[in-house]
C-alpha cells in the first residue's frame, strides 16, 4: 500500500479495517440458510436430467403420499402467472425486436436444460423432501428431444428449436453501430494490414461460495409476504416478483437479503425458486425454505461469458490502428436471465474501442438459445469479453508485424488532452491517463530485468513470457436516460436515506448491497468524513426493502459511484438543514453558518453548535424555526449518474510454461489501475486481488463443458477447476495513477470488476509470449482455459 494511504487512520482514503469482519470471523454472520423459523418446511426442487424434452406426464400421487410430504408443485401451478422477464430489450440490426420466450417459475410443457426445474416437493424435513423428489423424478415421463448445444450450430438449425416459437434459436442479431458498418468495411478493404483471430471466451460458473437459498413466509393476518434470499439487489427481486411473476402488490412483499456469501453477478437475478417458496408459503401457511446444493448451483445458477468471436484489426504497417471489426456468437442458454441480453451487447460492444484512438469499430453479436443453463453477467460482464478480444488481437498484430507490444499500445492510446472523448462505439470517456498506468506497470514489473529472469527459467528447462493487457471499462452503472434509450426496462439510479437520530447517532439506509465488498465500513467512512463525526456513530443498513428507500443493488462496480453519491447528496441535505437550525439557534443569518469538522459555526466568531446539539434540537424543537422548517433530521436522495465511469489500467503477467507437461505457473502479476479517488485502499486492493484471481481462473483453470447431449461434464469441484491458493501468486497492485471521475462528487470510478476484466488477456499473452520465446512460433493462440493438456498439445501439435 502506498505510504500516503498507510498514514491515514480515519475518513476518506484510510485503510480502515472492516467492522463486518467481527461477525464473520466469529461465526456470527447470518446467511439465509442460517435462519431457522418456527414451523419451517423444506422445498426440494425436481430438475430435468435431460437437456431437452417434452413433459408427457408427472404422476404426483406416490410422492404426495410419502411421509412428511406437504405439497407438490409443478409447472401447471404457475402456468397462469407471469414469467421472469428480460431486463433489457435489444433490437436486431434489421430493426426487429428480440425474441423473449417466457421463463416460467417451473418448466411447463418442455424442459430446456439439464437442471431445469419442473417440479418441487415441500416436506416437513429435507430428507423427506429429497426422497419424495426422487420418487417424483421416477414418476415423470419426459420424451427426450435432440439437444441443441453448440451455439453456432443452433443458429443454423431451423428444425430443432429450444423454444418452439423461435425458428432459428436466435434471440437477436445486433449491429453496433449499424450506421458505421459500411465505413468500417471500406477501411478493411484498403487496410495495409489485417490481423484476424478466432477466440472463445469460455463459459464460467460463478461459484459464489454460498449456494443460493431462499425462505418464503406468508402472514395471513395482513396478507404480507416476506422473502429472505441470497440477492445482490433485493428491490429488483421485489419488483420482478411483484410486478411480473406473482402479481403480489409491491407493498405487500418485503425482500431481505441478509449476509450474502458472494455474488459476482450470479445473485443479481431473480430465480424461480424465490417465487416458488413464496407461493408455497402462502398455500401451506408455513415458512418454506430452500437451499441449493452445490450440484444444483452448477446446473441452475446463471453462468457467465460463453462467446465465440472472430475479431479483425485493420492497421498501418507501423501498428497504427485503423479499425476493429468483430462477429460474435453469444450463448444465452435456454432462457433469458434478467440481464442476459445486455451483457453481450451494450456491456460488450460499447467497449470495443478500448483505451485507443481507433476511428472505426463495428460489432456484430448474434445471441443464441441453446439447451444449456442460462448465461448472464458475471464479474465484468461483457467488458472482459471485449478486453480479451482487443488485447489478444493487438498482441497478435504486433507479432505479425514485428512490433513492440508496449510501444504499439502507447502509440494508439488516447492522450489526456483528448477528454472528454466520444468513442466510435458511443461512449463518452470523461477522463483518463493510460500512458501513466502503462509506465507505472512497466516500472512495477521490472521489465528491464525480464531477460535475466527468462534466462534463469530457461536454465531449468522452463519457458518464461511476459503478457500485457491495457484495459478500460464502463461501470458505475448507469445513466437511466441513456440505458432507457438503449432498451433497459429499469432505471439505474440509486438511493440513500440518512437518518440522524435524536441522540446524534446516524443510520444510513443504502440501496447498494454488500456481499463481500465491505460497504458497512466504507460507506460509514465516507459519511463520517463528510459529516465530521466518528465512523462509530454511523450504522449502514442495507439489504432490506422494508428499511431502505429504494435501490438497484450492487453489481457493475456501481456501489460507491452511484449509491455512494446518493448518500453524499442526502448528507448534503442534512448539512443544509442543519445550517438552518443552527442559524436559528445561534441567531445568525443562514448564509453566515459554516459546517466543518462536525460543527455548525457562525463565520468569524466562536459561536458554534455541535452536530449532536443540532440533531437534538431537530427532535426536541423547543428553540426551533417551526414556522419555516419541519422538525426531524432525515433526508433521502436519489442519484442518477450523468455518465458511466471509466476505470482503466495496465496489467502485466509473467508466466512460466513447463514444456514437458504444459503446465503454466503465474510467476508475477502486476496491476497499475486508475480508479479515480480511492476511499479505502485496503478494500480496493482486496477487490483487485479477487478480480485477478477470478481472471486467472478463467485464463488457466475454469472450463464449463457440456457434452453433445447437454450433460454438464463439469458439474462439481471434482471437474470444474476452481483456483486454489497454490494456483496463484501474490499480486502486485497499484492505484496511485488517479484521474478522478469528473461527473460525480466523490471522483470515484469503481474497482470491483477491474481485475477480472484486465487479467485474462495478460495471462494468455504471457503464455503465447513464453512459447514463442521458447521457439514454438507456430502457436498463434490457445483457447482458455489454457490448461496443461492444451498447452502440451499446442507444443506438440
Amino acid at each position, binding site marked *: 500500500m502506498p505510504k500516503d494511504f498507510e498514514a491515514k487512520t480515519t475518513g476518506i482514503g484510510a485503510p480502515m479495517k472492516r467492522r463486518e469482519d467481527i461477525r464473520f470471523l466469529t461465526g456470527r454472520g447470518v446467511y439465509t440458510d442460517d435462519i431457522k423459523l418456527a414451523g419451517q418446511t423444506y422445498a426440494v426442487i425436481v430438475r430435468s436430467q435431460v437437456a431437452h424434452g417434452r413433459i408427457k406426464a408427472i404422476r404426483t400421487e406416490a410422492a404426495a403420499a410419502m411421509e412428511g410430504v406437504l405439497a407438490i408443485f409443478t409447472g401447471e401451478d404457475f402456468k397462469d402467472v407471469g414469467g421472469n422477464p428480460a431486463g433489457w430489450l435489444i433490437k436486431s440490426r434489421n430493426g426487429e425486436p428480440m425474441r423473449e420466450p417466457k421463463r416460467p417459475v417451473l418448466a411447463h410443457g418442455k424442459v430446456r436444460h439439464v437442471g431445469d426445474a419442473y417440479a418441487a416437493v415441500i416436506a416437513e424435513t429435507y*430428507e423427506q423432501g429429497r426422497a419424495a423428489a*426422487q420418487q417424483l423424478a421416477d414418476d415423470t415421463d419426459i420424451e427426450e428431444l435432440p439437444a441443441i448445444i453448440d451455439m453456432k450450430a443452433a443458429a443454423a438449425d431451423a428444425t430443432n428449436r429450444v423454444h418452439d416459437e423461435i425458428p432459428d434459436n436466435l434471440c437477436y442479431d445486433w449491429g453496433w453501430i449499424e450506421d458505421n458498418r459500411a465505413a468500417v468495411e471500406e477501411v478493411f478493404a484498403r487496410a495495409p494490414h489485417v490481423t484476424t483471430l478466432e477466440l472463445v471466451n469460455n463459459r464460467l460458473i460463478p461459484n459464489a461460495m454460498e449456494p443460493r437459498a431462499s425462505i418464503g413466509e406468508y402472514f395471513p393476518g395482513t396478507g404480507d409476504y416476506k422473502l429472505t434470499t441470497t440477492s445482490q439487489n433485493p428491490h429488483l427481486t421485489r419488483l420482478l416478483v411483484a410486478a411480473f411473476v406473482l402479481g403480489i402488490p409491491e407493498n405487500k412483499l418485503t425482500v431481505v437479503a441478509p449476509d450474502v456469501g458472494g455474488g459476482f453477478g450470479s445473485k443479481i437475478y431473480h430465480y424461480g425458486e424465490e417465487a416458488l417458496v413464496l407461493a408455497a408459503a402462502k398455500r401451506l401457511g408455513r415458512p418454506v425454505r430452500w437451499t441449493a446444493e452445490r450440484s444444483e448451483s452448477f446446473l441452475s445458477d446463471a453462468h457467465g461469458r460463453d462467446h465465440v468471436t472472430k475479431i479483425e484489426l485493420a492497421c498501418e504497417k507501423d501498428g497504427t490502428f485503423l479499425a476493429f471489426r468483430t462477429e460474435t456468437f453469444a450463448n444465452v442458454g435456454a432462457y433469458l436471465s434478467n440481464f442476459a441480453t445486455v451483457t453481450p451487447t451494450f456491456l460488450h460492444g460499447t467497449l470495443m474501442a478500448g483505451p485507443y484512438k481507433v476511428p472505426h469499430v463495428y460489432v456484430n453479436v448474434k445471441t443464441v438459445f441453446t439447451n444449456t443453463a442460462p448465461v448472464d453477467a458475471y464479474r465484468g460482464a461483457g467488458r472482459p469479453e471485449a478486453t480479451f478480444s482487443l488485447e489478444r488481437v493487438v498482441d497478435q498484430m504486433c507479432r505479425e508485424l514485428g512490433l513492440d507490444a508496449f510501444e504499439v499500445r502507447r502509440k494508439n492510446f488516447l492522450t489526456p488532452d483528448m477528454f472528454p472523448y466520444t468513442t466510435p462505439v458511443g461512449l463518452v470517456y470523461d477522463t483518463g491517463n493510460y500512458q501513466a498506468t502503462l509506465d507505472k506497470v512497466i516500472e512495477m514489473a521490472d521489465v528491464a530485468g525480464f531477460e535475466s529472469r527468462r534466462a534463469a527459467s530457461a536454465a531449468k528447462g522452463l519457458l518464461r513470457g511476459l503478457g500485457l493487457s491495457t484495459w478500460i471499462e464502463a461501470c458505475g452503472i448507469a445513466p437511466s436516460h441513456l440505458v432507457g434509450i438503449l432498451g433497459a426496462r429499469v432505471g439505474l439510479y440509486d438511493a440513500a436515506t440518512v437518518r440522524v437520530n435524536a441522540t446524534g447517532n446516524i443510520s444510513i439506509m443504502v440501496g447498494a448491497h454488500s456481499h463481500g465488498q465491505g460497504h458497512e465500513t466504507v460507506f460509514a467512512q465516507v459519511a463520517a468524513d463528510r459529516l465530521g463525526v466518528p465512523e462509530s456513530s454511523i450504522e449502514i443498513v442495507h439489504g432490506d426493502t422494508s428499511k431502505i428507500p429504494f435501490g438497484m443493488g450492487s453489481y457493475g462496480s456501481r456501489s460507491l459511484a452511484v449509491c455512494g453519491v446518493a448518500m453524499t447528496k442526502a448528507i448534503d441535505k442534512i448539512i443544509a438543514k442543519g445550517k438552518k437550525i443552527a442559524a436559528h439557534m445561534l441567531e445568525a443569518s443562514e448564509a453566515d453558518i459554516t459546517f466543518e469538522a462536525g460543527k455548525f459555526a457562525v463565520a468569524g466568531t466562536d459561536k458554534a453548535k455541535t452536530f449532536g446539539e443540532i440533531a437534538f434540537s431537530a427532535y426536541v424543537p423547543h428553540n426551533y424555526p417551526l414556522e419555516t422548517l419541519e422538525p426531524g433530521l432525515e433526508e433521502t436522495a436519489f442519484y442518477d449518474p450523468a455518465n458511466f465511469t471509466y476505470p482503466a489500467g495496465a496489467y502485466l503477467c509473467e508466466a512460466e510454461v513447463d514444456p*514437458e*507437461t*504444459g*503446465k503454466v505457473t503465474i510467476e508475477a502479476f502486476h496491476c497499475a489501475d486508475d480508479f479515480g479517488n480511492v476511499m479505502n485502499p485496503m478494500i480496493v486492493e482486496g477487490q483487485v486481488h479477487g478480480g485477478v484471481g477470478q481472471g486467472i481462473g478463467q485464463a488457466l*483453470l475454469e*472450463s464449463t*463443458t457440456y457434452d453433445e447431449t447437454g450433460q454438464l*461434464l*463439469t458439474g462439481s*469441484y*471434482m*471437474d*470444474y*477447476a*476452481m483456483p*486454489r491458493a497454490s494456483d496463484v501468486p501474490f499480486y502486485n497492485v497499484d492505484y496511485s495513477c488517479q484521474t478522478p471521475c469528473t461527473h460525480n462528487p466523490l471522483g470515484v470510478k469503481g474497482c470491483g470488476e477491474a481485475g477480472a476484466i484486465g487479467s485474462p488477456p495478460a495471462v494468455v499473452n504471457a503464455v503465447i509470449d513464453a512459447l514463442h520465446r521458447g521457439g514454438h512460433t507456430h502457436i498463434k493462440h490457445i483457447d482458455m482455459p489454457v*490448461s*496443461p*493438456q492444451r498447452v*502440451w*498439445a499446442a507444443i*506438440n501439435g
Partner: protein
Amino acid sequence: MQNFDFVKPASVAEAVAALGTSGAQALSGGQTLIGSMKQNLAAPAVLVSLTGIAALKGVSVSGGVMSIGAATPHAEVAKASGFPGLSSLAGGIGDPAVRARGTIGGSLANNDPAACYPSAVLACGATVVTNRREIAADDYFQGMFTTALEDGEIITAVRFPIPERAAYAKFEQPASRFSLTGVFVAKYGAKVRVAVTGASNDGVFRWTDGEDALQASYDPAAVKGLKVSPDGLIADLHGTPAYRANLVAVMTARAVAAS
C-alpha cells in the same frame, strides 16, 4: 442420503461379524464413501466404522519393512520416519482434512484409478494383509475400483519392503487434485519397479518399459525419450490418452530425480 444403522466395533472380529449382516458396508475414513452416499451411489443398510479398532492403527518399521495399520490416516504416514518416499506421497493426498481422516486401507479397498496409494503398493510389491490372508500387490489390483478382496474381507495392514531409493511424482488433475498421472518408482538393488496411477482405464499398472530402462541406467534421462502407448489410457476432460502417455514418462523421470 438414505439412513442406515451405524456401528463402531472395537475389534476386527466384531467388525467382521457386523459386516456379515445384510447390506453392511465398511466405513474407514469416509472421504470417498460419504461423498458417494450423498449422491445415493452407495446406500448401505449398516455402516461399520473401522476407525475405532486400535489394532488397525499405527506405523512401525522393522527389518526393512514398514507396516501400516489399515485404519491409519494419511497424516500419520506423512509424519512417519523410515520411508520418506511413501511419507511424501501420503503428505500430498487430497488436502489436510482428507489426510486427517482418510486411511490407507480405505484407499486400497476402494482402488480409485486416480488414487495415490495403489502406485506405491504396486511399485514396492507390498503385501496387503487382511483378516483372512496376505495378498501380494501384483495380485491385489484387478482393475478400476476392483480388487482381490472378497465379501466380508477387511484389510488390516499393508507391509512395504522399504526400497533403497523411491519417490512419487504426481501431476494433479486441476479440479479434483487427484492424480491425472502419478508415478511411484522404487529401486531395490538392481531391480526397479515403476507403478502408474491415474492414467489407465485398468487402474494402477506397472510400466515395464520404464522399469527395463531404469534397470539399465537409473537416471531420469533413461526414460525421458521413451514412448508410452496411449492405448487403454484414460480419456477425459483433463487429459487425452496421448497427454497421459507423455506424463507417464515425464513423471517417471521426475520421480527418479526426486528419489
